[in-house]
């Protein structure tokens, strides 16, 4: 699948839509990525480097391939059987599209938060302990510590500490979403992928999650898909604008929002469509 054999951990400048200066470590390098759902060409020649300990936002109208791209980063997209991929994605310098790269391994290092909060129908505690447990951590004390730290990390500890053993479905949507973030933190990931994590939330919960993201970026690299441009503007360092499966523009967030170089970016940002 991975056609490109050369691996470029630090991608050189010169890619058409990348005006980002190389001053940080690259977490994800994407080169000439193409993806098809059957005949449907969903990602077209994506080349994009994502940097450490930053928030990278991906925006674009519905159906432009945002979710597809982010799901390619932890190979969840391959759950769709008709998917074909060409090009290369490297994570920390190693090509993840390579057959020899174990997805389970990749996914323990790259956490993911979804659009709709999707806690397991178990207790709050079990939700957070799930990851460590499958990775073989059985010691009750250690688990307790992991659960507390993760819930604190997701800024939800105070709200749930007295009901750790109640079902997670008793929580509000916003709490559930932070629980999912905690669940993700529990396996101490390197990168966190977020696919419209606040789109199902009310304004207050959205604010909380946004604050949390600002907090998390000190420790983790975060890639976030959002349809809310104001949100991208508020919380991200870099923004990529996708349209019809292509990256139209990728730059510092303030540049994208104040001075986009592509007419389509401007049209989108000013609400001409979408």
């Amino acid at each position, binding site marked *: 699948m991975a056609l490109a054999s050369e691996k470029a951990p630090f991608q050189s400048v010169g890619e058409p839509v990348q005006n980002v200066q190389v001053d940080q470590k690259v977490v994800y390098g994407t080169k000439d990525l193409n993806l098809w759902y059957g005949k449907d060409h969903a990602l077209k020649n994506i080349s994009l480097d994502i940097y450490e300990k930053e928030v990278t936002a991906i925006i674009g109208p519905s159906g432009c391939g945002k979710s597809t791209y982010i799901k390619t980063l*932890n190979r*969840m997209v391959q*759950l769709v*059987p008709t998917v074909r991929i060409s090009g290369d994605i490297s994570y920390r310098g190693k090509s993840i599209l390579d057959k020899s790269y174990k997805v*389970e*391994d*990749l*996914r*323990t290092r790259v*956490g*993911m938060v*979804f659009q*709709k909060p*999707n*806690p*397991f*129908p*178990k207790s709050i505690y079990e939700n957070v302990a*799930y*990851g460590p447990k*499958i*990775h073989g951590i059985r010691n009750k004390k250690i688990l307790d510590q992991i659960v507390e730290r993760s819930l604190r990390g997701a800024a939800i500890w105070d709200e749930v500490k007295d009901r750790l053993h109640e079902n997670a*479905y008793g929580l509000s949507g916003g709490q559930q979403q932070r629980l*999912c973030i905690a*669940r*993700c933190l529990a*396996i101490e990931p390197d990168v966190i992928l977020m696919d419209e994590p606040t789109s199902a939330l009310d304004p207050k919960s959205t604010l909380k999650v946004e604050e949390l993201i600002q907090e998390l970026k000190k420790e983790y690299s975060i890639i976030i898909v959002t349809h809310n441009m104001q949100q991208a503007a508020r919380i991200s360092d870099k923004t990529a604008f996708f349209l019809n499966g292509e990256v139209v523009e990728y730059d510092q967030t303030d540049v994208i929002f104040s001075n986009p170089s592509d007419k389509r970016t401007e049209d989108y940002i000013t609400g001409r469509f979408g």
Partner: protein
Amino acid sequence: METNSALNEGNAVNVRELIIEKKSKRNITNVLEKIMPKVLLSIAMISILTTVGIVLTLLTETVEFFSRVPLIDFFTGTVLKPLSQNPEFGVLPLLTGTIISSFIAMFVAIPIGLMTAIYLSEYASDKVRRLLKPMLEILAGIPTIVYGFFAFTFVTPILREFIPGLQATNILSPGIVMGIMIIPMVASLSEDAMSSVPNSMREGALALGSTKLEVTGKVIIPAAMSGIVASFVLGISRAIGETMIVTIASGSSKNFTFDITQSMQTMTAYIVEVTGGDAPAGSTIYYSLYAVAMTLFIFTFIMNLLARYISRRFREEY
């Protein structure tokens, strides 16, 4: 826009006036609108009538039966000799026959059905699933008489190679074959339950680095538990009601035994035997048929209610 001018110019027809004019004549529409709910309700009542019919049919004759044979004797009697000179009407031989055959069937159907469901729902690709599922469903569609034939002429002789004491007619072979017949039912219902666990749950677990087995065992099965258990209960209910396989392959001995190598009779097979003989109306054996049928009906009725209750009561809210 030029197209719109058409609206103004070609006002040859005034739809609004036409509609108002027609409205006064639309009696049929109004009448239909009024009577259809009633017509459909009466049709819907046929299913209720059917149940009432079943219950009344069984009940009247059952009452007569119990006026002749004490309830206690019926439910605690271990001897069933309906046609004998000194008839005895203990239902226990039939109950054990029914329960044992259903138990054997579920012993086959539950593990295989569940594992099949897991494979189809969690592992198989769409293509494979679409190929295998209809093929499995053929198993459920094969007439039971064919299974009876199969149990009697094929499975029993094979089993006898391994189990020396096995009778030519025995409860084991039809039990196993019934289990095979029920596999698709358990598999299909369990699979439905598992695939209705939202994909977000699967994705959530996979994104944490779980293997498919872990996703299935720790997330999907617990979440789908009620549906899975309900499929087991419905499977049991099906096994209890199954008739032709046991009739053909287990013979008609009314042994009160727990030895699965022996011939036993189930409630259903008893009904076939007695109605096949069409016992003269009015004889005690004729009424016993209804008492057994009533017992069978209540048995399966409870099972079905139980399955409904389980799948409702314990339905997870995702």
